[in-house]
């Protein structure tokens, strides 16, 4: 029977000629797998744009029209901003240099350089424009438009409050998301599996689920013993809804043949639920998780402003109350980074869990 195997194992080394042939094949496959071509002009322009940003920030005099508060803030952070500009340029120059190294590090640096060059240039030009339009020429009016230096200044000055706010936001989000996720999975599996449960729960889901978090504010903070539990409820609810809908949809679309096969192999109900339905529904569940993560940020910031009085959402509004727009932007910068990182993490988790979907090498 072994003779009927595909001849994949037949390519054993028989001599020098076949070794060099397989090396050639390996190189060709490597080129196809990582078609990275670094554009030297673009990456050079990108590095130069950041050097230009650093030099302009440091040596072009600031506008004399800046309000005193902004002028001081810009002044105090100029050196640091110059360092940031040079550091970005230096880091990319280093990565570019590493791309000629062989091995995994070289391959990584090549990919980075090829991929990031255009963004490096775009961001550098944007930074230059930003710097000139605010601190240098004062074209965009303070206080609503602020120079990069001012945001860096606030990020540093408020690092204590910002760290606390970040920790509070992440904890509240984690608790709310976890509660909503577990509740959503349980509800989704239950109503996807049981017709009777679906009869009772589905109408409730359809009517309660889409109600926006903001509308829950008056009730959530009254019905729940503490503002914190109210906030957890609001976040959990916005997570619960998409997770439930898409878990149910995923389970309803599991091919009947999967159940037939599992049953003829001796599977009972619990195996069918946990080992057949749930994994088969995972692609759909992850779609729900992406929707849930997006809407959970909304409920998080709402909850933070209407009862919890802590966290990044609260910080941003608090700074706005003081008319401190650099502080507002600093809070937004942190929030943007958090959202981006969490979404990326979810993508990574999804790609790992659903790797059986993506694996395309066929034998």
């Amino acid at each position, binding site marked *: 029977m072994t003779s009927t195997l595909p001849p994949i194992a037949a390519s054993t080394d028989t001599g020098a000629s076949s070794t060099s042939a397989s090396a050639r094949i390996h190189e060709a496959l490597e080129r196809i797998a990582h078609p990275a071509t670094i554009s030297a002009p673009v990456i050079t322009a990108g590095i130069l744009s950041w050097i230009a940003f650093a030099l302009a920030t440091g040596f072009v005099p600031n506008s004399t029209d800046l309000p005193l508060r902004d002028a001081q803030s810009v002044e105090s952070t100029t050196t640091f901003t110059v360092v940031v500009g040079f550091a970005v340029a230096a880091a990319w120059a280093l990565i570019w240099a590493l791309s000629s190294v062989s091995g995994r590090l070289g391959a990584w640096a090549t990919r980075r350089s090829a991929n990031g060059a255009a963004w490096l240039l775009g961001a550098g030009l944007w930074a230059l424009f930003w710097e000139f339009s605010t601190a240098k020429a004062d074209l965009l009016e303070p206080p609503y438009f602020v120079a990069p230096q001012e945001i860096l200044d606030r990020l540093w000055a408020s690092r204590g409050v910002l760290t606390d706010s970040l920790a509070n936001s992440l904890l509240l989000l984690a608790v709310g998301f976890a509660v909503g996720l577990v509740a959503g999975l349980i509800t989704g599996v239950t109503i996807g599996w049981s017709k009777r449960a679906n009869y009772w729960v589905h109408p409730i889901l359809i009517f309660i689920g889409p109600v926006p978090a903001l509308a829950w504010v008056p009730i959530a903070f009254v019905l729940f013993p503490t503002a914190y539990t109210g906030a957890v409820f609001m976040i959990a609810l916005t997570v619960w809804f998409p997770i439930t809908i898409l878990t149910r949809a995923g389970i309803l679309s599991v091919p009947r043949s999967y159940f*037939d096969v599992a049953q*003829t192999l001796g599977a009972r109900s619990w195996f069918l639920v946990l080992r057949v339905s749930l994994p088969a529904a995972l692609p759909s569940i992850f779609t729900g998780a992406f929707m849930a993560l997006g809407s959970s940020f909304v409920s998080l910031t709402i909850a933070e402003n209407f009862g919890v009085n802590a966290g990044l959402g609260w910080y941003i509004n608090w700074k706005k109350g003081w008319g401190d727009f650099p502080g507002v932007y600093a809070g937004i910068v942190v929030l943007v980074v958090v959202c981006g990182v969490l979404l990326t993490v979810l993508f990574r988790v999804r790609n790992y869990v659903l790797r059986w979907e993506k694996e395309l090498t*066929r034998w």
Partner: protein
Amino acid sequence: MVADGPTSAGAPIDILGVTQAFRSGGKDLPVLDDVSISARQGEFVALIGPSGSGKSTLLRLLAGLDKPLFGEVYVGGAPVTGPDPSRPLVFQDPTLLPWRTVRQNVAVGPQARGILKQSRGRIDAALELVGLTEFADAWPAQLSGGMAQRAALARALVGDPSVLLLDEPLGKLDALTRRVLQGELLSLWRERGFTAVLVTHDVSEALLLADRVVVFSPRPARVREAIDVDLGRPRDQSTREFNALRRHILEILDADQTGPDRDRTARADHIARLDDKEVLT
């Protein structure tokens, strides 16, 4: 090849006066009409008939996935009351669970029955039996059609079944792979000693593999004829006896498609239903 060898020989099958029907589009649709078939212990039976004639329905009854409206199904002397790992079903599509590797798919049965730990050796042996040891950690999406169907066979065989139900398992494979797998199926059957029931559309395949070929009428299916295949093994498709049997079976099937020998009442019913449908729509 399996470490502990075939532990259970095949079980005899008795299908007694089974009638099965479904409701489809508000109409009652009879599928099996008073079908009785028996198979001896370890016998290889092929079921052949026009498409949609209820052969797969019969396999689902044997697997315990459906219950007949009338009649009884016995396997090993006991009535079939539900699915059981001793009667696995191999489908035309391999229906491997795509999120499990080949090895994990073969392990579904033992895991479902809570005997995964004790079954490691059996799982490896089943993979070796179908020649997939090298591909044990591959995802189903990476397999060719033939390899996927081998994995499905290994999954069915790991529980050491007494009856193996095969619903056109080679129907979607290319001619070359099909030939190879026919040979493998045969040697597995001879080695393990299970009773095999194979649904197929391919007369040559039926004659190549089976001890007995049961020919069905169009729906609702009745047994037209059960033909003993008294040919030595390994079988040679080019012999006169083989071709005589082949022609005989094809004649029965052809007569049902066009000839005067068809089951008039069933066909008349069928036509009447079709007429109704046309009038209604």
